[in-house]
C-alpha cells in the first residue's frame, strides 16, 4: 500500500478550554496509482484529514505511513522533505503565487524537492493546454486556467500521491468536468495515486472508488462531540 493510516486522531482546542476532535480515523489505505474520491461536506474534517496526510499538521495520535515512511512520526523537517518529494497538493482556491508566472509557479512545486526542471515545467503546462500562457501571471488567466496551473504544479515534483481538496469547487460545471478529467488523466500518466475530496455528486460520480468521509471519520459522524481537556 502507498498510504496506510491507523487510529488517527486530531483535535483542536476551543476558546472555552475544550478539545474538539475533528479527525478520528481508525483505518484507511490507498494503493499506488489508485484513484479514490472521498465524499465530504463542510465540517467533516476533510481539509484537516488531507493536511495530516500531507504532513502539514501533526496528529495527536495514530500512524500515517506514506510510501513506507512513517510521516506521523517524522520531525517537521522530515515531513517537509517527504511532502516536497512525494506529495502533490491541489487546493480548492488553487493557492498560486500571484507574483510568479505560470512556469515559475510550477517550478516552485519542484524547487524544494527534486530540484527545478524548466523543461518538465513547460511540458506539464503544455499538457494542460497552457503552452501559450507560460509567462502569464495568474491574474492574467481565467479561473479554469489557474486551476490547470495548480494541477501542473501538484505534479511537478513527480509525486506518488496527489491530494485534491475540492479542486473543482470554484469552477462552472463544464469546466469542472473537463478539469477533473485532466487531473485524473495526468495523475495516471505520471503514475501518481489520487485522493480527492469533494461534496459534488457529479465529481464523485466519475470515480469507481468513492468513500464517505463521514463513515471513515468517526469525529465527522458526530461533529459536535466534545471532550474536556485533561
Amino acid at each position, binding site marked *: 500500500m502507498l498510504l496506510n493510516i491507523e487510529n488517527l486522531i486530531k483535535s483542536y482546542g476551543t476558546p472555552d478550554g475544550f478539545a474538539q476532535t475533528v479527525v478520528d480515523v481508525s483505518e484507511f489505505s490507498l494503493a499506488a496509482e489508485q484513484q479514490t474520491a472521498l465524499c*465530504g461536506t463542510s465540517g467533516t474534517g476533510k*481539509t*484537516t484529514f488531507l493536511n495530516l496526510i500531507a504532513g502539514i499538521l501533526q496528529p495527536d495520535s495514530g500512524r500515517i505511513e506514506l510510501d513506507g515512511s512513517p510521516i506521523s512520526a517524522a520531525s517537521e523537517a522530515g515531513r517537509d522533505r517527504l511532502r516536497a518529494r512525494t506529495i502533490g497538493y491541489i487546493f480548492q482556491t488553487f*493557492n498560486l503565487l500571484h507574483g510568479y508566472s505560470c512556469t515559475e509557479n510550477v517550478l516552485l512545486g519542484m524547487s524544494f524537492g527534486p530540484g527545478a526542471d524548466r523543461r518538465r515545467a513547460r511540458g506539464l503546462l503544455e499538457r494542460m493546454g497552457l503552452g501559450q500562457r507560460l509567462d502569464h501571471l495568474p491574474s492574467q488567466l481565467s479561473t479554469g486556467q489557474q486551476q490547470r496551473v495548480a494541477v501542473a504544479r501538484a505534479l511537478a515534483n513527480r509525486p506518488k500521491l496527489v491530494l485534491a481538496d475540492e479542486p473543482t469547487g470554484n469552477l462552472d460545471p463544464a469546466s469542472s468536468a473537463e478539469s477533473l478529467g485532466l487531473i485524473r488523466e495526468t495523475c495516471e500518466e505520471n503514475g501518481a495515486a489520487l485522493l480527492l475530496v469533494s461534496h459534488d455528486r457529479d465529481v464523485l460520480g466519475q470515480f469507481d472508488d468513492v468513500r464517505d468521509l463521514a463513515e471513515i471519520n468517526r469525529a465527522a459522524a458526530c461533529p459536535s462531540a466534545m471532550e474536556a481537556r485533561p
Partner: protein
Amino acid sequence: MSLLQIVLRSLRQHLLSTVITAFSIALASGLLMSVWVVKDQARENFTGVDSGFDGVFGARGSKLQLVLNSIFHLEASPGNLSWEQYGQIAADRRVATAVPIAVGDNYQGYRIVGVTTNLFNVEYREGKKYAVSNGYLFNPEKKQAVVGSFAAERLGLKVGDTFHPYHGLFFDENKQHSETYVVSGIMESSNTPSDRVIWIPIAGLQNMAGHNAETATDVSAVLVQLRGKSSGMMMNQEFNLQGDVMTFAWPIADTMSKLFNKIAPVEMVLRAVALLVALVAAGSILASIYNSMNERRREIAILRALGARRLTIFSVVVLEACGIAALGALAGFGVYFVIMSIAAWIIRQETGIVLSPLEFQPVMTWAPLAMLGLGALAGLVPAAKAYRTDVAENLTPIS
C-alpha cells in the same frame, strides 16, 4: 527556483518599499563614509600641510593663530615682528631658510600676501617647489603679482591683467588702495592653501598707501626651515619657554593636531549621529519587511505546503533584508560621492585644502559591510515571524 531567485522575486514584488528602504540605507551608508572620510582626510591634510617649513615665528600669542594665518592663510595675524627681528631669525645659525611674509590686504576676498622671492626656492613637498605655470615670477622692485591657481580661476585673472588691492583681510569695496598691480604670472596648482593666495613683493604690501608708515618694515610672520630637529627643541626652549618676545610655532603639525584634539568631541558627536542614522536605516528595513509579513502569511504558507522548510522561509526573509541592505550599500557610494564632492568643493573654497573623494579609505569597506550586517540583523525579527507562520491556518480555512 533557487533561494536567490525567490528572494529577488520577493524584492521585485515589493519594489516600492524595496527602493525606499534601500534609499534610506544608501543615505546612511553614504553619510557614514562621508563623515569618516572628511574627518580623516581633513585631519591628515591639516596636520600634513607644512608648506615645506619646520616652524613659524610671529608676535607673542597663540601658536595656532600664527600657523592658521601664515600657513593656511585663514586667521588674522596675531601681531607683527620688526624687520630687525626677522634679520635676527634669518641670521640664526640654526635656521637654514627664513621667509618673511606680510598680510593685511585682499582682492575680492582673496588674500594678498607680501613675500620675498626665496619662498619659491622652498620645496613644499618632496621634489615640488612653488612654480609659475604661466607668465613669470614678480619683480620685487615692481608692482607685480603672481596669483595662486585657485584664486586665478575664481577671480578670472590672467597674465597681464591689472587690479587694485583692498585693505584688510575681508573684502570691502570702500577700502580700495590706489596702487595698481599687474599679474605677471599664474602659479602652478600645488593643492595647498597657497593656491588661494595672491603673492606680491613684501615691500609692496608693507608700503601700500594707507598703511601705517611706522610699521612699514614690519612682517606678519617668518617661516623657517631648520638645520635639524634639535634646533627646533632649542629654539622652542629659548623663544617659548624662556623668552617673552616672539612665539615659535614648532612643529607645525603638532600645533594643528592640538586643534583637532580640541574638536575631537565634536567629531565624536558627528560620528555618533552618523551611526545613529545607520541604526535608523536598519530599523526601516525591519519595519518595512515586518509590516509586509501580514500580507505575506498566505504566500509563506503556500511555500511551506510545497515543501519549503521553516529554515528556508527564515533564510528567504533574512536574505531579503540583506538584499535591500546590499542595494542600499551599493547606492551609498553614489551618495558618498555626491556629499564628498560638495564637501571637497566647500573645503577647498574656504581653506585651500584638497580632499580626495576617490582615494580608498578603510571606511569604504567596513561601512557597507556594517550596513549589510545591520540589514541581516534587522531581518531576523520579521524572519522569526515568518518562521512561526502556521501553515494550515493560513492556507485554507479549516473545515
